[in-house]
């Protein structure tokens, strides 16, 4: 499978979505709505539940399973309201000492007039700024698409894990090819140059773990174990490690 096929596969409409992962790992998941500012974004699912008996806060970007559902979920492209809902619940998680699990699957943050005028840039910036200092463990799991800033907004975490057939990229291969070579036909070339697969990102040290699809059954146990390990760290140490994690990227 070449890198562009990975991207196409990650976009596939028969893939498991965030809801599937939540149902399998967090049977008592309870969803909460709204950003308490102006709305509720259905592209972002957020709530609490327990993973292997451990209470956690869960944020997921949900694409939907069928056409109707996908429209309701805006195809998994969040508005600022979605990021603000995620931030509200992450801050609540810190208050109650719950770890945060972010399940990421998005082509990118939504591009539209309302999204811009409600502060898409500010919403993402706020997530990065606040998560950098959130005194509770955060684990991000990219299950399909990790599209640029819209995915990054849920990845300022202690660990970034990726399913083996997911991707995480600064830009979509099509846009990249279009901008650089004025042709979307070179998307495959762009995909390979962008180094966006789980294996390549792991090798570059940018993500922490590649999860095989056939180990999905044990994923809940592994996440719970990681949270247990991170929860033992004093908050200052946890935040210092998180700072170092991003501090060393590049140069």
């Amino acid at each position: 499978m070449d890198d562009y096929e990975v991207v196409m596969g990650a976009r596939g409409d028969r893939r498991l979505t965030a809801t599937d992962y939540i149902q399998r790992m967090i049977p008592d998941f309870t969803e909460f709505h709204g950003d308490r500012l102006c709305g509720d974004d259905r592209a972002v699912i957020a709530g609490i539940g327990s993973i292997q008996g451990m209470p956690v806060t869960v944020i997921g970007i949900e694409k939907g399973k069928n056409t109707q559902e996908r429209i309701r979920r805006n195809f998994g492209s969040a508005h600022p309201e979605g990021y603000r809902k995620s931030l509200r619940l992450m801050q609540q998680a810190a208050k109650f000492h719950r770890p945060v699990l972010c399940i990421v699957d998005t082509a990118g943050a939504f591009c539209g007039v309302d999204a811009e005028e409600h502060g898409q840039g500010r919403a993402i910036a706020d997530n990065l700024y606040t998560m950098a200092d959130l005194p509770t463990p955060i684990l991000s799991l990219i299950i399909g698409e990790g599209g640029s800033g819209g995915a990054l907004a849920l990845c300022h975490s202690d660990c970034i894990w990726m399913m083996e057939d997911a991707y995480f990229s600064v830009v979509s291969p099509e846009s990249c090819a279009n901008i650089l070579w004025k042709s979307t036909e070179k998307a495959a070339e762009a995909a390979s140059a962008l180094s966006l697969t789980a294996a390549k990102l792991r090798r570059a040290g940018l993500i922490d773990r590649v999860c095989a699809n056939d180990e999905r059954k044990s994923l809940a146990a592994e996440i719970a174990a990681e949270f247990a390990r991170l929860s033992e760290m004093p908050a200052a140490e946890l935040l210092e490690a998180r700072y170092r994690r991003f501090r060393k990227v590049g140069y």
Partner: protein
Amino acid sequence: MDLKKLFLKANNEPEGGSAFLRMRSISCRECGKKMSVARVRKNDFVCPECGRYMTVRARRRILMLTDKRSFTELDREMESRNILGFPDYEEKLAAAQEKSREREGVICGTATIEGHRCAVFAMDANFMMGSMGSVVGEKITRLFEYATARKLPVIGVTVSGGARMQEGMFSLLQMSKVSAAVRRHSNGGNLYIVLLTDPTTGGVDASFAMQGDITLAEPGARIGFAGPRVIEKSLKQQLPKDFQRAERVLDCGFVDAIVPRSEQKQYIAKLLLLHGM
């Protein structure tokens, strides 16, 4: 669109690039009028005919905002490498260095502004459209760390098309890296003033451009996350005329004030004074 405008656009690089050095006169991209470079320079690179704000290179920007001879540059030598072996990236870097006369897309250092000591950074539109790669992210992060350790305010001038594609995820993660450094600077009780200039978009808009204690903008500057063409194309809708312009962004609640170029230094000095810096 009128043809004359299109022609001018195609032939004009952002003012202040290396080609600018060889020119005696330029035509304004907006009104099309021809004028001497000296006249434009004297007017702080604002078109004396129509008032359009032209692009200012980072080094001049710092001169405009800080006290004469007060600027000391930090991390001047840092240069980008082609981390991913991305096609044609070395050539692009070389062309950007030639065009901008800088090693990378941001200049960092310390200076005084009407006597107030601060850390400053200014991005350069002539360097791959101010895109943020690892070196840009690293230099700004180091500046915030430097300022945190010395309890200095940071004054930043942004201009950027976003994260630099040629460095893939290394670029995107610079947003996280800089944001964390901005947060630490803030936790130390330090002031960060950011001045958004045309254009401030993409990954820079979605990180340190939107994390200032005080957010200023230049008149007419484009400020936004997604490019207007992307939105127009994906939504097939005509955008409002002032969409993503500083004035509109202020109305939407994301900018504290729009400050004309001629008043910026004074304005920032006043803010520094009010913060007891």
